[in-house]
């Protein structure tokens, strides 16, 4: 009898280690977790093959990101920067992805992706510039294949899918990382992006940073689905739910997703379960909508503390954290100062609207300059 889709059973192109996604079926609400809150390994089999040096590097990246994040919040409090969205608590996800992402791989961020942007060589100075209200911060001097911060929720994932198409069409060895929040999964663009990525079978790794809230709205009010990873089924993609505060779990999931996508099998959805420890942005007050108890409960899962405990237990970590933080602070402050001295000429408003400025804009600019002169003369 005739049946629906009769999708030709796609042959999976070989990749390694070929097991995690199969074993953690989101339909059964399974979650991939490798170390517990105290840094104990729960399942040695699942432990990724990482040398101590890499683990330390990862921890330092997390640590640096957190320090920068906390300083950003305090710069903002000092009135030296406008709104800033902290990533505090979500470092493991981004640093794990950051270990894998190569120079030519693409990153399509939302706006809470500081750590992976740093991994892609976006500078803190640029991030600061942006949140000081200067678009020059989105012109990345050293980063390759990173899209600017994208504020309209969900829309960036379609760009990721389109880039995936380019990669496939141009037969390049590249992978796209697309990020979105839990709230963002409700936007039509999220579904459309995954659906197109499925049909086109393009190398995109979609990450949902499920930090439990969309501003004040808890994820339970976003959807009735058992979890967010399971949404992959609607688009025929592999999906997995991962403990986003467990660096090793995140790394393992990404490694498999990366190999899978890079081998040409298509896109993957990762739900990274985490918690936004800070406010939504510096203009938000979380005490309006969540309890201290909840925050403390989640604090036990903090990705930095957890990895630190693991390192301590395994005697990997040898550095002086105080010294490190001082060094980081100096570095961060230096970048901030550089950002603070940037100027914003009138031409910046006009110069980048088109590759060549149309007459209409030239005229508007000239008219404004006339006004400025008039104003000067008036004084």
């Amino acid at each position, binding site marked *: 009898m005739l049946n629906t889709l009769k999708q030709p059973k796609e042959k999976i192109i070989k990749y390694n280690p070929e097991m995690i996604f199969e074993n953690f079926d989101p339909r059964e609400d399974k979650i991939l977790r490798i170390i517990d809150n105290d840094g104990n390994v729960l399942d040695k089999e699942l432990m990724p093959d990482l040398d101590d040096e890499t683990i330390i590097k990862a921890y330092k990246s997390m640590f640096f990101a957190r320090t920068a994040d906390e300083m950003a919040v305090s710069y903002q409090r000092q009135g030296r920067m406008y*709104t800033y969205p902290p990533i505090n608590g979500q470092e493991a996800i981004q640093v794990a992805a950051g270990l894998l992402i190569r120079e030519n791989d693409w990153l399509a961020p939302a706006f809470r992706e500081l750590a992976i942007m740093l991994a892609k060589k976006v500078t803190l100075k640029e991030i600061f510039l*942006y949140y000081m*209200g200067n678009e020059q911060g989105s012109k990345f001097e050293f980063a390759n294949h990173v899209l600017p911060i994208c504020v309209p929720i969900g829309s960036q994932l379609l760009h990721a899918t389109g880039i995936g198409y380019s990669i496939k069409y141009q037969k390049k060895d590249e992978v796209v990382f697309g990020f979105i929040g839990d709230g963002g999964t409700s936007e039509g*663009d999220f579904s459309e992006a995954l659906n197109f990525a499925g049909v086109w079978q393009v190398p995109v790794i979609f990450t949902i940073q499920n930090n439990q809230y969309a*501003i004040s709205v808890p994820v339970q009010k976003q959807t009735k689905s058992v979890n967010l990873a399971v949404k992959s089924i609607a688009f025929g993609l592999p999906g997995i739910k991962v403990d986003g505060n467990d660096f090793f779990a995140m790394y393992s999931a990404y490694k498999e997703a990366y190999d899978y996508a890079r081998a040409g099998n298509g896109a993957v959805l990762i739900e990274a379960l985490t918690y936004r420890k800070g406010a939504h942005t510096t203009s938000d007050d979380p005490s309006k909508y969540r309890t201290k108890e909840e925050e403390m409960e989640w604090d036990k899962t903090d990705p930095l503390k957890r990895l630190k405990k693991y390192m301590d237990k395994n005697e990997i970590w040898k550095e002086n954290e105080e010294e490190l933080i001082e060094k980081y602070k100096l570095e961060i402050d230096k970048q901030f100062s550089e950002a603070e001295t940037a100027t914003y000429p009138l031409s910046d*408003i006009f110069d980048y609207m088109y590759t060549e400025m149309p007459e209409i804009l030239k005229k508007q600019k000239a008219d*404004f300059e006339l006004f400025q002169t*008039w104003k000067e003369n008036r004084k």
Partner: protein
Amino acid sequence: MVQAINNALDIMLEEDKSVVIYGEDAGKEGGVFRVTEGLQKKYGEERVFDSPLAESAIVGAGLGMALSGLRPVVELQFDGFTYPAFNQIISNVSRMHNRSRGMYNVPMVIRFPYGGGINALEHHSESPEALYAHIPGLKVVIPSTPHDAKGLLISAIESDDPIVFMEPKRIYRAIKQEVSDEKFSIPIGKAKVLTEGTDVTVVAFGAMIRECQKAIVMAKEAGISVELIDLRTIYPIDKETIIESVKKTGRIVIVAEAPESFGVGGELIAIANEEAFLYLEAPPRRVMGFDTIVPLAKGEPMYMISPDRIFYEIEGTVKF
């Protein structure tokens, strides 16, 4: 203004069980600008609530409610996030009454804060009034004071036609004004002459009114008598009030934040030409935003229209 709007919503929720309010963060938190603060507590989660993060759904579902006995007042979080709902607005909300040849009314209000001047991120400073005013079947309303916000919003909620209600976020908390706690309404479709004058007509709305008022002080000092009109309703536009004024002054300056090209200014100039051509003594002028993206905070002071820029253009028009 935040309080006046909150009060209008409160009154209508109290009076009419069919009024419901929702949007992203509009429930528990009371909205990112606290416009709906306290309303969920007072009226319950069924009537004032948070929705999932999807503007097309917020508006589309609201239309469904409006067709089946409710009077939804939906909140979109910012001007720049109304666009995912654009299709529902232009293809369905504005058309259902006409499409069904009057079988269905659409008593629905789509509220959102708009405009620049608050040092915000991208997409948080837009003035899309011309886009919505060009859509047949909608009415577009913009208050410029707390009092007007309350009276116009009450009219909007009581209207059986769909209303796009744009709130000038820059003056959400900037203007102190005593507003009566009683229920009152202000008619949609009527502009208001705020200051009478004889030399030039200035038409503005929303947050630009305040800037114009500052410019008028400067003009007065320069011996120029300005007639200031607050448009209040962008569509259907109150041609009569504008024409009458232009016939008197012979000059018109339009002030608005949005990009100049294909914006509100052109429409007003067309109206002045079509109905008061022989009275025009100087070319009408537009004092509007550049045809650019509203810049981030550092660039915004150049983009945003200042009182002296308005004065400069007024003077130019009068001296023509």
